[in-house]
């Protein structure tokens, strides 16, 4: 509550609107993520996942990272979730609840989730600490592409070779002859 009061005082040095919307989006994301793992209707789980991923894109926009946000929408919502839904509907398009989902290994998933969260939280705290990142304007696409094609050219090429290998592998697996 004190943080909220500090946020609305006129001399506060933080972005009020951004923080309010961060909170709103974060609540929606947390609830959707909770529903993804608790609902026993697989299609509903995939649709809740859309909300989580859209929330991530919205948070990227609040950080001024337009390019990353749009990529998030294009890749995750437009392709990954669509493929999930496509696969589910082609194979087991059972309307309504699927009782077999209830017996999934919740304890194991919880352990993995906590581990992943602590690794990411540690990495973030270790990298940024108490630094305050000032975002005056959205990041230019040109800056992103300059960074990718100069400083990070080797990781970029490695990832593209990996993707090409996966592509060829998919074709080999799918071929009948």
């Amino acid at each position, binding site marked *: 509550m004190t943080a909220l009061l500090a946020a609305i005082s006129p001399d506060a040095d933080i972005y009020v609107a951004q923080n309010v919307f961060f909170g709103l989006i974060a609540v929606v994301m947390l609830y959707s993520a909770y529903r993804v793992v608790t609902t026993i209707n697989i*299609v*509903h789980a995939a*649709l809740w996942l*859309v909300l989580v991923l859209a929330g991530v894109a919205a948070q990227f926009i609040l950080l001024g990272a*337009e*390019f990353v946000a*749009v*990529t998030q*929408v*294009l890749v995750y*919502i*437009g*392709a990954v*979730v*669509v493929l999930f*839904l*496509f696969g589910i*509907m*082609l194979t087991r*398009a059972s*309307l*309504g609840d699927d009782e077999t989902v209830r017996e999934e290994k919740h304890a194991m998933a919880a352990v993995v989730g906590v581990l992943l969260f602590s690794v990411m939280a540690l990495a973030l705290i270790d990298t940024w600490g108490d630094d305050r990142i000032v975002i005056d304007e*959205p990041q*230019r*696409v*040109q800056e992103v592409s300059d960074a990718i094609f100069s400083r990070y050219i080797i990781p970029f090429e490695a990832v593209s070779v990996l993707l090409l290998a996966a592509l060829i592998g998919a074709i080999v697996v799918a071929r009948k002859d």
Partner: protein
Amino acid sequence: MIAELSYWQETAIRVGAGLGAVLLVAGTLVYVHLFKMVSFMQSRLGPMEAGPYGSLQLLAEVGKHLQKEDIFPRKADRFVFAAAPFVVLASTFLLVVVVPGGPDAWFVNNDVGIYLAMAVSSVSVIGILMAGWGSANKYSLLGGLRATGQLIAYELPLILAVVGVVIQAGTMNMQGIVFAQAEGEIFGWGGIGNPYILTQGVAFLIFLIAMQAELTQSPFDMPIAESELVSGYMTEYSGMRFLMFFIGEFATAGVFSAVAAVLFLGGWYIPGIDPTDNIMNVLGPLVMFAKIVILTFLVFWVRFTFPRFREDQLQRLAWKFLIPLSLANIVVTAIFKVWI
């Protein structure tokens, strides 16, 4: 004029204009193309009773749909079924924000521009799958799956065709693409600028074909093939929700045409008038509107002329012809960009 307004006033005007642009264009297309043009092609008059030359027919149709019962199939997944048309329509309204109409007459002027348009246009697939699955009807589900397979396949040539333009303009910003064409020169002659249809003609054709498929218009209307699937994923919808799918279909046709007009036909600029002149804020939207009507005329001309593809022919056209062709176009464009 706009500079004197405060931020929220400016934003309110832009949002209102965006809503107006989508609905106005959709209404015009339904009346001019669907009601009148097609009727003349088939040697009939089309609607004539409501208003002069049937111009108020559209309002009558909307009124009719609003009164109809909102029917839910008994086994339908009620929430998913009810939400699907909103997802499809939201995709259309998100798509329109990148289209500029003048030096200050834009909805959103950001760096990602055309990339944003390509991303949000893929969101409508989720709405179509929701509609197909939520209806609890095997015809709807088949229609939804066909639509998804088709939209995924034709999204690739659509995006790859755009890449050629982006390479040539050197920006993804829609305003930047318009200015690049307005200030371009054809072999040193800058009289009409350089609309990219001249240098990216192949990409333009690929874009139009892929656009026709993305809009699921004939000859790419396998998803709603009425002789096989009743009406595909829209089968169970009635009243207002059907109307939303209907508006979405025509509004998306208009918005995709607007994107094509910006990318390939030079957008809102007029040769001979300084593109930063204030008068362009009034003339620009009219130019865009004219180009939208011309491009959608092509879409509906093809729609009412050709019979539909078979599913395997449709997929083969995308994967074995359009995608390699658009990749070759990118390579050639990149070589010209670097060496010339």
